[in-house]
């Protein structure tokens, strides 16, 4: 291969990395089908690999890839149409519908990207399906990579994605950006999917490792992408929340992989560039005047980040932010976190009363962190036998090995 040939190959690789998902998003709109669009995308890049080293890079590589992919798809349908009459009709319809299309401009491309995100995160798909589909189609991860991240087999994951695409097709989930009236609810569903991906990378629901960094990085990338396309305050709030959590990654586990509680973390190991970016975004989100749950959680995280240690933390402000959060998004886990903040502000007895009330309602009876919090309050109140019992209950319920090790250490440290 000549020198310029390898330059072209490198350029194509870069274009694939930067543009393939956007080309796919436009092809899905033009072809009306995920599978067809993916085949077309692969064929367009195969054509680029053979033509560009000879002819040089086109002026607008993305437009070239879209139109090549579109014609390859129509060609393919036409070839198959010799054996199937309904396909012949489909080929004619596709051809006439795309014949006089102008090259998609920047705004179209952004809209296609949003269409893809909203379709992959449609609430009529199960959360698991949304996560898998988003990572595959929007982020471009392979099924093997996604399966690995979720500790499942590639065939299970591939099946989940196929089922989701079948539902999109058979149930008639449209490829569109929701109308203004539906946007808040539909955006919630997108944000939930991104946060699920982030949390699976930050606090995996099961398994040996405490964090799976790649998923968090993907979620942050998605958050940045969405904030660029649709700068809604809650999108900005979610991005801020993820950045502020991510800033503590190096400090939140010991060398042996045990979790280190926020109050015990070495704050010099926090990533201050991420904290600065996250805190600025919190300010932007709160200034909008439309305050949602992600922005509030980010604000709480920013208050933690601003303190040099646990004692210097503005617990009154944190408790106040939790009060607001509980009003707009009632949730027992938020109540638990509020109880922890109030225990820091007013002392462990106040926190214990709140946690006991929560546990009595039964909603968090099987949540290990509720029992771990109770153990901590009891220990601080010198009620060591109660602390031991709560810790043992938390140990029974904890699902990851590092958390179990941590709880065993807590039990051993009790007098």
């Amino acid at each position, binding site marked *: 291969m000549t020198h310029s040939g390898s330059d072209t190959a490198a350029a194509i690789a870069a274009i694939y990395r930067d543009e393939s998902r956007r080309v796919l998003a436009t092809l899905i709109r033009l072809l009306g089908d995920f599978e067809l669009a993916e085949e077309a995308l692969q064929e367009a890049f195969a054509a680029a690999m053979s033509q560009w080293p000879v002819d040089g890079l086109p002026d607008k590589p993305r437009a070239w890839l879209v139109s090549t992919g579109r014609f390859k798809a129509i060609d393919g349908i036409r070839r198959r149409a010799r054996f199937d009459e309904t396909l012949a009709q489909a080929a004619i319809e596709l051809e006439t519908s795309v014949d006089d299309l102008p090259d998609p401009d920047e705004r179209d491309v952004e809209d296609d990207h949003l269409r893809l995100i909203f379709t992959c995160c449609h609430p009529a798909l*199960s959360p698991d399906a949304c996560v898998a589909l988003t990572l595959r189609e929007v982020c471009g991860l392979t099924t093997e990579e996604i399966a690995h991240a979720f500790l499942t087999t590639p065939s299970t994951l591939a099946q989940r994605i196929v089922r989701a695409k079948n539902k999109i097709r058979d*149930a008639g989930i449209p490829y569109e950006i929701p109308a203004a009236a539906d946007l808040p609810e539909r955006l919630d569903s997108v944000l939930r999917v991104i946060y699920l991906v982030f949390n699976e990378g930050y606090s995996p629901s099961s398994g040996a490792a405490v964090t799976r960094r790649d998923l968090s990085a993907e979620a942050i990338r998605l958050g940045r992408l969405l904030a660029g396309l649709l700068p809604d305050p809650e999108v900005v709030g979610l991005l801020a929340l993820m950045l502020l959590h991510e800033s503590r990654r190096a400090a939140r586990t010991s060398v042996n992989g045990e979790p280190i509680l926020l109050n015990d973390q070495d704050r010099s190991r926090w990533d201050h560039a991420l904290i600065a970016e996250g805190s600025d975004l919190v300010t932007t989100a709160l200034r909008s005047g439309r305050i949602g749950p992600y922005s509030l959680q980010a604000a709480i995280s920013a208050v933690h980040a601003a303190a040099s240690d646990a004692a210097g933390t503005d617990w009154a402000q944190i408790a106040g932010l939790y009060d607001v959060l509980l009003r707009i998004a009632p949730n027992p886990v938020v109540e638990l976190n509020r109880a922890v903040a109030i225990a820091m502000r007013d002392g462990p007895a106040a926190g214990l009363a709140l946690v006991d009330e929560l546990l009595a309602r039964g909603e968090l009876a099987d949540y290990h962190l509720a029992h771990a919090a109770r153990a901590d309050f009891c220990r601080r109140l010198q009620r060591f036998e109660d602390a031991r019992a709560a810790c043992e209950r938390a140990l029974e319920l904890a699902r990851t090995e590092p958390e179990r090790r941590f709880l065993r250490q807590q039990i051993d440290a009790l007098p």
Partner: protein
Amino acid sequence: MRYLCLVYAEEGKLAGFPDEECVAHDRALRDNGRCLASEALQPVATATTLRLRNGQLSVTDGPFAETKEQLAGFYMIEARDLNEAIQLASNIPPIRIGSVEVRPVRQLPGRQRAADAV
């Protein structure tokens, strides 16, 4: 009197069941003037369940009727896509106390719609 006949079957068994037989039966019943509306449905995996509580619409994957909830009626609607179907179905009054399952109709090969046949 008008009666609604609801067809229940295991999907695994349905997959191998002959569509032609269903189409022929349907045609005979329509020729008799006894069939008002009839459709086959897509598999349950395509279902979407809607609920409205405190003015908040919840949309979930799958058929998630509570076991206490019983079939109380049906609407056959024409919609551009699932989003429009959700929008129309979210106005069905009992959605506030129960749920509405939205399931796409499956086009059987070689069969006209009842409305077109009349």
